[in-house]
């Protein structure tokens, strides 16, 4: 219901964009996008969607200029922010490498009167961002946990593969633990797979040696699901009923759409959120739409029915 409302609101906003652009089309606005370089699948998706949205928006708004700049680490992102702001920008859309290091550089950009949109990773000081767009990590865990609880209502043994020991992972894990609390689901084991296919493959191989019966796997991330599936296939085990990943990698969305029994669902944490941020930022300048505040995307459960909505065959992720 909530999701439908959101989509409805969003398409209204888009319609508004189209109508508004006719009047204020030649207004000159420059927006800088500063994001991490594509160092793994998800950030690769962020870069793809930032460029895709930039192209679409520039086509719709002749006066609009969007500069996309990627940085390999926090220090070089701080430098990139300085370079970008000296070019005279009206807005900055940024996914910061880390909060502590980049809060001050972004604050300096804001001091010049620039509109600041922060994506995914919140800054240490919440007042810096005019608009905050993010996925919902505790929700990602909770939605996966709820699905497990529903499918394994009669009880079941599951194994968990976590990401890296950082805040994002903790939030997801806590959401999951809270969701399955009080159910008959038994978590046999939790290990870190470092959000890597190869490490997840190893951990899953070891789980399969260690436990003779596993009902389901929660691995929090679609990249890791690739390794998990391969390990299960190699062992030829039939006891595992399904694997729940997360994020929304195109290969996994495709499997969901095709009705793959091993990947019945996926939980969204879409890199395309950077496109949402760009759209909203542009709306602020061209359409007099109030956008200041926080925009938290739901961790939508992707099922066979809605999978095609989230399928981007051209995206690298």
């Amino acid at each position, binding site marked *: 219901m909530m999701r439908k409302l959101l989509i409805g609101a969003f398409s209204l906003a888009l319609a508004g964009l189209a109508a508004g652009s006719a009047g204020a089309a030649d207004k000159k606005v420059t927006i800088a996008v500063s994001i991490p*370089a*594509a*160092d*793994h*699948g998800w*950030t*690769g*998706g962020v*870069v*793809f969607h930032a460029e895709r949205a930039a192209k679409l928006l520039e086509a719709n708004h002749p006066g609009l200029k969007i500069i996309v700049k990627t940085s390999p680490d926090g220090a070089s992102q701080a430098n990139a922010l300085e370079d970008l702001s000296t070019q005279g920008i009206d807005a900055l859309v940024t996914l910061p490498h880390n909060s502590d290091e980049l809060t001050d550089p972004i604050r300096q950009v804001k001091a010049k009167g620039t509109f600041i949109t922060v994506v995914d990773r919140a800054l240490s000081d919440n007042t810096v961002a005019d608009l905050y767009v993010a996925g919902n990590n505790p929700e990602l865990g909770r939605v996966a946990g709820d699905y497990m609880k529903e499918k394994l209502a009669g009880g079941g043994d599951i194994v968990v593969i*976590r990401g890296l*020991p950082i805040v994002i992972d903790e939030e997801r894990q806590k959401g999951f633990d809270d969701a399955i609390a009080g159910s008959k689901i038994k978590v046999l*084991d*939790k*290990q*870190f797979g*470092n*959000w*890597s*296919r*190869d490490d997840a*493959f*190893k*951990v899953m*191989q*070891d*789980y399969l*040696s*260690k436990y003779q019966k596993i009902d389901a796997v929660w691995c929090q991330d679609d*990249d890791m699901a*690739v*390794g998990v599936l*391969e390990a299960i296939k*190699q*062992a030829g085990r039939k006891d595992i009923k399904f694997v729940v990943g997360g994020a929304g990698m195109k*290969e996994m969305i495709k499997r969901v759409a095709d009705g793959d029994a091993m990947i019945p669902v996926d939980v969204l944490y879409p890199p395309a959120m950077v496109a949402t941020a760009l759209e909203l930022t542009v709306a602020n300048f061209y359409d007099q739409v109030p956008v200041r505040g926080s925009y938290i995307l739901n961790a939508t459960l992707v099922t066979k029915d809605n999978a095609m909505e989230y399928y981007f065959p051209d*995206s*690298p*992720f």
Partner: protein
Amino acid sequence: MSSGNVTGDHKAAAGGGDRARQAAAPGRLDLRALAPFLALAVLLVLGAFVNDNFLSLANLTNVATRSAFIAIIAVGATFVIASGGLDLSVGSMTAFVAGTMILFLNTGSLDGSGMLLFAAMAMAIGVGALCGLGNGLITTVGKIEPFIVTLGTMGIYRALTIYLAEGGSIAIKSQPLRTLYRPAYFGDVLGVPVPVIAFLVVAALGAFLLYKTPFGRHVVAVGSNEDVARYSGIPVGRVRTLTYILQGVCVAIAVLLYVPRLGAATSTTGLLWELQAITAVVIGGTALRGGVGRIWGTICGALILEVVGNIMVLSDLVSEYLIGAVQGAIIIIAMLVQRSLMRRQ
């Protein structure tokens, strides 16, 4: 069971290699060469106590098969380190070679999957050798510390891979091709997994090259004392460069086994493998300062690393947050035991 036999082979062969090198002490048991094998044996006993399934055939086969990548890369690293060099780029090189190999497969430029696969494998070996040649030439001709050179190429190979993948992953597109290639990792000959056979063959060739040929003696001589080697008429630069090429070829061989496993190269492929390879080499008894090379010890070192990781997951004793600390401690203890054995000798 097969893994037990494998270890036995190592011992015999390692003894043979070292006897050839240390002819001065005939008939004496070389504890230094045996130490890593003892450490592995202790770990196997420990593993058996931790979990009943540890000694199951399926688990031991998994572990031996998984260690193939690091084992093969570490054989190359043994040459580089024995000659007094260092190669930090092997992990990134793995990703780069894997990426280019899959891109070549995806062009489908040759008729017949078999021919295409064969050409792609040959190309991968070529790319690996060229990457190694690059490292070698910059180090020797440019006269720059190998640490710096390979730190630089580590970044270059990694970034090129990410560029080729456009930030995502490079996957084999053709499903029949994947099916055809899959047995290269998952297949076995008489119960012995193909990757295990591969690393035994690579190690045997490496041992032959290091212990039985003039090139091998030159590698050790250059690593012991570069100046003396030069005055003895050994072409130091050429020997060094060749060790890096050898390293590149070993990386490519590891890639030939890596690609069929998940059928894709990603930006996390081979991450930190350089450190694992160097650790395997050092656990195996090769000195980081050069002048000594122990191929079979290196193989044992790679197995130890993988067994430690396996025991950690199989045990319920350690919180998942502390696994890294325990792994580190086990490696340090293994090295301390090794050192004390050497002193007693």
